[in-house]
């Protein structure tokens, strides 16, 4: 038996989330008394694979034969083959675009129960019960998994990274694959920009900013902090900001260490996307705005006055 952690790579590199996944998988593997293995598909530098050892995989399985771009069916088949070969009883994915697309497919292949967006280790192993937030973060559900094989996807920035070195032997794993039925025709992306979903600090603004022309001070504040920028839904719906910045129930669900909400009223759908943040700061001119119920720290005031001052104070901090 084993725990298998699937690790995406980004242009051949791993990210903090990869180490978080391994730390999580390792803790569960230790509790179960089984080894943890990592699986990486696609081309990754040897030096990158080396960095994984610190987080406890006994073996790191690799295969870059044809895994150049994501085809869900092909990848799910490969991951399932690896899970079967290595007798994995538990497979761990990251709860993100790629993990979401693959976990359900692998679950069907392995006849495994799947619990998505977990943020802690199981409550018990026998029976296997794990907690997850449901109704968009309003309550927790304890989910019992009845199948022998199980699949989990871990929400980002929820599990502590633990150094726990293991052999980390890199091994080429033979995996069959058929011709993919989807094909990437073109890619359009910016590199080097801090991504909202990776960011530990987020500066977010809402309709209280009045219009897109006033976002300069939001960007400056973000720059000072080294934070990513986000917005409430109306701001992206109106085209003031790109859709990728929209957080909340129908946008991105994030869990940064710090979330600063400026001119955002704090509608329940907005809170659903940010309530896992470790620290929430609200700046709003309305003392009765519901955002203050979700916040840890608050200032009642005019954003146009408070933000430049806050920016100066942070520069000197």
């Amino acid at each position, binding site marked *: 038996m084993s725990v298998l952690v699937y690790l995406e790579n980004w242009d051949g590199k791993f990210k903090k989330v990869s180490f978080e996944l391994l730390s999580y998988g390792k803790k569960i593997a230790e509790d179960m008394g089984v080894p943890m293995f990592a699986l990486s598909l696609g081309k990754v530098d040897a030096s990158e694979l080396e960095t994984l050892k610190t987080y406890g995989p006994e073996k790191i399985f690799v295969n870059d034969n044809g895994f150049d771009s994501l085809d*869900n*069916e092909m990848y799910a088949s490969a991951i399932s083959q690896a899970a079967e070969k290595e007798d994995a009883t538990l497979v761990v994915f990251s709860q993100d*675009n790629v993990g*979401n697309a693959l976990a*359900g*497919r692998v*679950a*069907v292949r392995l006849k*495994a129960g*799947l*619990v*998505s*967006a977990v943020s802690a280790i199981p409550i018990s192993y026998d029976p296997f019960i794990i*907690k*997850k937030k*449901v*109704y968009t973060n*309003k*309550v*927790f*559900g*304890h*989910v*019992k998994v*009845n*199948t022998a094989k199980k699949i989990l*996807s871990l929400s980002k920035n929820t599990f502590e990274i633990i150094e726990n070195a293991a052999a980390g032997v890199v091994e080429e794993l033979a995996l069959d694959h058929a011709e993919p039925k*989807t*094909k990437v*025709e073109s*890619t*359009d*992306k*910016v590199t080097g*920009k801090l*991504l909202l*979903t990776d960011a530990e*600090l987020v500066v977010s603004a809402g309709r209280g900013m009045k219009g897109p022309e006033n976002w300069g001070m939001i960007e400056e504040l973000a720059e000072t902090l080294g934070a990513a920028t986000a917005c409430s839904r109306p701001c992206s*719906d109106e085209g003031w900001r790109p*859709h*990728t910045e*929209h957080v909340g*129930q*129908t946008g991105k669900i994030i869990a940064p260490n*710090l979330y600063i909400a400026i001119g955002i009223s704090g509608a*329940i759908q907005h809170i*659903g996307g940010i309530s896992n943040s*470790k*620290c929430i*700061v*609200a700046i709003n001119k309305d003392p009765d705005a519901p955002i203050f119920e979700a916040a*840890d*720290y*608050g*200032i*009642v005031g005019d954003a146009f*006055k408070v933000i430049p001052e806050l920016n100066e*104070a*942070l520069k000197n*901090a």
Partner: protein
Amino acid sequence: MNILVCVSNVPDTTTKVKFSGTQLETEGVQWIVNPWDELAITRALELKESGAGVDKITIATVGLVGTETTIRKGLAMGADDAFRVDADPTDAFFTATQLAEVIKAGSYDLIMTGFESADYNGISVGGMLSEILGYPSVGAVSAVNIVDGKLQIDREIDGGKEVLSVQTPVVASVQKGIAIDPRIPAMRGIMMARRKPLTVMPAVEVEVYTEVVEIELPEAKSAVKMFDAEDIQGLVNALKNEANVI
């Protein structure tokens, strides 16, 4: 081209959810079309109206008879017909298995599911459905277009997007961006929806893979600490020394 949209019936997003045991208390709850599914129907309608070659838009729901109000709303938006599998959707695998039966009984080129359902946030029906059917799938879909009669699907990736060509039938799990404002049914649509075909199918038996055995309420949050608008430094100090986040 025929499009099928999988629709989940969920409590209105402002609902303060209450439970008795693991059962949601439904008294006073307003039910809606799951927000992403609503956007999927909207996009399907836009494609049909643009003359890009969409023949028919079908809705499929797994749910008890009470979900027919939500299904009728989808029909009122403009979908052509609907299927309801008569069962309480207990988990994602159960739901996906039932939807697969509906799809096998028909002929669809594009199947759209919302990226998640706003109740159990399982994020998995689309993936499971495609695997059961042996169809290709695309997740994190932010646009669906038909170019020269062929589907072209945008997938969100970190920092941007990829444009994919796909073999059909295909399952697309859609998210924000696929459409902006959900279509609001007009009076005429609501009248017509009453006469549109809604077929009820029995559920097939499925092994119970996962089940919710307990609901736990989150701990009450500690009260917010307020700073005067003149005391910006006080906030900065708290972030630095108390919360340790900067």
